[in-house]
């Protein structure tokens, strides 16, 4: 992650009176997975639309791979892949034909649709019409479509929303494979667990602004409660004890606990990204 793939400066977009994206600034390094988290209407999709040239920013600028998204839209589009939130495949065509069409539009040389479909777990269904696919299969095909041009930056807008765990995991694995290939990934999601697991850094977006941006680890350190929670045997049941990790006599308290009580379990209590989001914005991610 030596250089930035995405640089955003004061990016702004308004729908009439409503400021959907309000002067946001951030950078995403090459090969980084950046999570963009926020509830519906926070401005995530509008940001993606501006970064992919679907909307023209009203203020500010953004460069992708060193190219201005407004002045060099076509060149930028050749280097990116986009997986939309809403399924928008040609349902009357086969999966293979869908991918081949986009490979031809990108001018991808030596494109192997079978191999790509195998990667997303659709081997054997290549020549089936997409209309017969399940939601999870369609979503995996959407992800596959965003990869036909071997993009340097991949935008994934809620790629696992409403999917079964198997499909979600399959998509998660593809994201990690693409990161390993060196692609930069811009992931918008509601799923805290997914973001925590996959992303190098996450940005919390609320009411068009970035409320916090850091690695999940740093956010947890910054906003989480540093404490140990121990479960001790108490008669026939269990009792919880909490020991602050930042108190001056933490070491003493732990020793005393083990000396005096029968400790059944002990673990550190970490805040989840959801907890931190609520702390930072005062709102829940899914309302």
């Amino acid at each position: 992650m030596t250089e930035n793939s995405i640089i955003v400066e004061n990016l702004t977009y308004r729908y009439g009176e409503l400021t959907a994206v309000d002067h946001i600034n951030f950078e995403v390094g090459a090969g980084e997975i950046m999570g963009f988290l926020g509830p519906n209407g926070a401005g995530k999709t509008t940001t993606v639309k501006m970064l992919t040239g679907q909307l023209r920013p009203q203020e500010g600028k953004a460069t992708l791979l060193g190219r201005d998204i407004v002045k060099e839209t076509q060149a930028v589009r050749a280097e990116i892949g986009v997986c939309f939130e809403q399924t928008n495949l040609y349902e009357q065509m086969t999966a293979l034909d869908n991918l081949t069409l986009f490979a031809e539009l990108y001018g991808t040389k030596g494109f192997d649709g079978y191999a790509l479909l195998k990667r997303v777990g659709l081997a054997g269904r290549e020549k089936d019409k997409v209309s017969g696919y399940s939601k999870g299969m369609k979503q995996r095909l959407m992800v596959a479509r965003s990869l036909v041009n071997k993009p340097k930056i991949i935008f994934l807008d809620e790629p696992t929303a409403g999917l079964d765990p198997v499909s979600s995991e399959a998509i998660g694995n593809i994201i990690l494979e693409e990161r390993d290939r060196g692609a930069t990934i811009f992931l918008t999601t509601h799923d805290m667990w997914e973001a925590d697991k996959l992303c190098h850094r996450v940005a919390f977006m609320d009411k068009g602004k970035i409320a916090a941006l850091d690695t999940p680890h740093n956010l947890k350190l910054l906003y989480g409660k540093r404490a140990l929670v121990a479960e001790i045997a108490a008669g026939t049941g269990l009792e919880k004890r909490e020991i602050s990790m930042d108190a001056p006599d933490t070491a003493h308290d732990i020793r005393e606990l083990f000396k005096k009580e029968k400790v059944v379990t002990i673990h550190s209590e970490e805040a989840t990204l959801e907890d931190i989001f609520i702390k930072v914005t005062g709102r829940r991610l899914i309302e």
Partner: protein
Amino acid sequence: MKTSVIKALLKKDFALFVSNRFYMLITIVGLVFYIGIYFILPAQMEEEFRLGMYAPVVPPAFNQLTENEGVDIEFFADEESLKQAVLDGDYVAGIALPPDIMQIWAEGGKPGITVYYPSTATAEISEVIVALVKELSYAQTGQAFKFETTEEILGPDMLGSQIALRDRMRPLLAVFILLVEIMTLASLIAVEIEQGTARALLITPLRISELFMAKGLLGVGLALGQSILFMALVGGFSQQPLIILATLIIGSIMAVGIGFLLASLTRDVTSVTGWGMLVLVLLTVPGFGTVIPGLISDWAKIIPSFYLTDTVSRVANYGAGWGDVGVNIIVLAVFSALVIWAGMISLRRRYQ
């Protein structure tokens, strides 16, 4: 523009067209239906002989003729009503006698008799009318040529070149087949916008001009292919095939432009169908003027499809040349250029 990109889009659009049962059904059934209509319609001309007459004073010999000879003559209260009835195609001819006909004959003069013909009248009809008037004159005065006739054609002058109904229907059917593709094209575009696939296309390095080119080629191909097939099967290229081909090409471009506009101004496939039917009916109206000359007034010339049907009709049925239909083709070409330009601008906004 990259030809590989346009080729890929065309391949995709054609695959979607073929895989859509509704499009295929209306295309094949429509084509078979229109070809069937052509061959079902009579190849011969009608020979019914009904005359209209305006005669402020009816010479006694005329009354005898209608009573004894069984000639079907309808009398009109004024000359304008007679002309309108002839123009509407209700009579093979209309005869207007001067109010002082008896006085002129009595003074040994030659009264002027005006004969009105519809544009579909044959040369034979003209001869029959003159013979009839001659007979009336003889019956009344004892002399065959005691009159002078003025012949006036109402509507376009096609005297002597009357054609069968099915051939008069031919331009209307060809143009209708062509115009139906407005709805097919608009529906294909509307579905892409509605389902978000257009958005997926436009996120690639594809240029919007390439998208328009592919859609335009598909629309022209479908409209032109079918209208050419129809015209070829019904013998529509027997006269001046180049002019007809050029006219159909320009007409297909016009259909594409209207298809773009329709797709950009409607919300979904349902509204495309609703508004499309309205547009189709409006654009078909001038075509009825080729079936029944005189049926459509001059106002129909403001409908651009008039220049399409009129040109095909005049060339295919009356052998008109470049010089005869040049103005029509220029008007059609200018309108087609304007409508495709407006369609692209409007559709570009819709895509964005």
